[in-house]
């Protein structure tokens, strides 16, 4: 099994015919993802050939769902149009919308997240690398060849590159699913949502949680772990050296006042029994140690 995304998932790509959409649709297909269609109102009825596989283009998400039974959409639509694209997907009743787009205005994200909350649609992102269930499906831009082996680790991360780094270091053990939730101030699926799903997933034995400065998502995740998670959790937090008031790459990665520091997040996680590594490689070693104990 895996969380949110399995080999049964039928995936639409909103913005497939754009440059990024084309590149990553090809990569998703190579990773075994069942990409059943693209969405572009101006190219409805056409299809795009990916190395001999013709992927149809639909005029709307609703048309794509009606024709294919799609239950996942990956959004590559540029920022000015991303809000409308996500709301269209929610209206069409899609189960999962993975929003890759970077640079969406916060007001737009607030509106579409609130809209999705009143629906059945789960949103991952925005500004995220998406999620991958190795050997099954890949929805987003995570390079599938980093860790091809299905395995026992569940990974949830705010950062794309740290997701890749940890997947690489733990590629011998493999992953049930790895989810990049995105570094924006307002995201749909949270660390807590993923912890709950990994806790319930019989194939996940250990959870890796990657956080960074800004906000209090990691502190809330720590409280959740103490209450609800029985599986071992290994953590890593980036941004110990980040100065106050400076945005470090991600729109949400900023220490404001005394809140959002890496130190506070690490302490909160450790207080909940999470072992926290001080570097990505030490974090990977902590995982290997723990897996060795349970094996």
């Amino acid at each position, binding site marked *: 099994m895996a969380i949110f995304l399995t080999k049964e998932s039928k995936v639409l790509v909103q913005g497939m015919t754009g440059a990024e959409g084309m590149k990553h649709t090809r990569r998703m297909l190579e990773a075994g993802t069942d990409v059943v269609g693209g969405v572009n109102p101006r190219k409805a009825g056409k299809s795009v050939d990916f190395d001999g596989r013709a992927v149809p283009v639909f005029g709307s998400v609703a048309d794509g769902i009606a024709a294919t039974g799609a239950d996942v959409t990956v959004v590559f639509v540029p*920022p*000015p149009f991303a809000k409308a694209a996500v709301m269209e997907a929610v209206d069409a009743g899609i189960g999962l919308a993975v929003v890759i787009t970077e*640079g*969406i*205005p*916060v*007001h737009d*994200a*607030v*509106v579409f*997240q*609130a*809209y999705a*909350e009143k629906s059945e649609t789960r949103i991952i992102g925005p500004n995220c*690398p998406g999620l991958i269930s190795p050997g099954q499906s890949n929805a987003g*831009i995570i*390079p599938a*060849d*980093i860790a091809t082996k299905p395995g026992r680790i569940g990974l949830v*991360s*705010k*950062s*794309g*590159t*740290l*997701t*890749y*780094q940890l997947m*690489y270091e733990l590629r011998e053990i493999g992953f049930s699913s790895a989810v990049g939730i995105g*570094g924006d*101030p*307002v*995201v*749909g699926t949270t660390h807590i949502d993923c912890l709950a799903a990994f806790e319930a997933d019989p194939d996940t034995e250990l959870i890796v949680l*990657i956080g*960074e*400065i800004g*906000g*209090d998502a990691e502190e809330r995740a720590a409280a959740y772990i103490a209450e609800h998670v029985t599986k071992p959790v290994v953590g*890593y937090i*980036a*941004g*110990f*050296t*980040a*100065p106050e008031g*400076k*945005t*470090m*790459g*991600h*729109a*949400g*990665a900023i220490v404001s*006042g005394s809140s959002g520091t*890496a130190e506070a997040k690490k302490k909160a996680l450790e207080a909940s029994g999470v072992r926290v590594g*001080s*570097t*990505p*490689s030490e974090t990977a070693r902590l995982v290997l140690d723990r897996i060795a104990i349970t094996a």
Partner: protein
Amino acid sequence: MDLYEHQARDLFAEYGIAVPEAETVEFAREAALAAERLGGRVVVKAQVKTGGRGKAGGVKLAADPAAAELTARQILGMDIKGHTVRTVMLAQPVDIETEFYVSYVLDRAAGTFLAIASAEGGMDIEEVAATRPEAVARIPIDPAEGVTAAKAVEIAVAAQLPPETAPVLESLWQVLIREDALLVEVNPLVRTTDGRILALDGKVTLDDNAQFRQSRWGDEQQDPGADPLEAAAAAKGLNYVKLDGEVGIIGNGAGLVMSTLDVVAGCGARPANFLDIGGGASAQVMADGLSVILSDPDVKSVFVNVFGGITACDAVADGIVQALETVRLTKPLVVRLDGNNAARGRAILADRAHPLVEQVTTMDGAARQSAVLANAG
């Protein structure tokens, strides 16, 4: 992006929130005439994008136009927490009866905006919130509904603000929505002894991601108090933050670069900067990044840390080699390449064999080496 106080003031006025009469000047000799137009007696306020102006001597009362000019002369050019004062605002003083606090802020946990209001404004609101949380009302706003007249009254009642502040709450929400602001704050909002409600000081933070539909704030928003290297990097579209250490750091992806800073710090050196070349870095981006970092005199060594995902390590290596053609390398460069096409990337750098470029295969080892080189340099 934060607005200056005078810009926030103008914005409030535009949305129908009453503010004191004020003018801004860049030269002290203009202050006397401005003060005269404002009635003689004025408050002279430094315009910098940082807090603590009052304590730093950046806010002063001047009794008459001559004093206003003298005060402006003292404040202009002053350094407040690293920000040089280039503009002062002269404002009519008001007789305050009561001070309040009102703001809308983003609540990341709830994914929506929150009204925060208190009948005890003026002083440090965080202090009030920490010691007597019951004195501060926090009310989530449904983004689909916004702040209607009824919602504004609800906020005012919850915070025990007088009813005549409700229209201000309604207008302030319009500022937030229409300007794509992440924070709008009025502190203090005051009732004057003659019964007026005035926004005496305010802060507005705009969403940089919304610039494509908010064109009125242009390049003049570049904070002149900002570091010159940050300005140069911003002009080249680089995601760069100047720090105060000796190891220059370039990497791909915000999380990995933040992590690199931490690992270098853990090796006993201080990071000189944060520089994220992002996904799919071109040779040009690499060259631009290197040139910014090498022009920082504090930098003693440079650490390039790339985990190739979307980014291919051979492209990064090509970028470094091309950068070496255009940028004169004077400081040691430690490179760690992993992931996508790492073997080809490493081979490209090995072939180039620049005497100041050294490859280390692990992130921790490369961090240690760049720290050693920085401490030796």
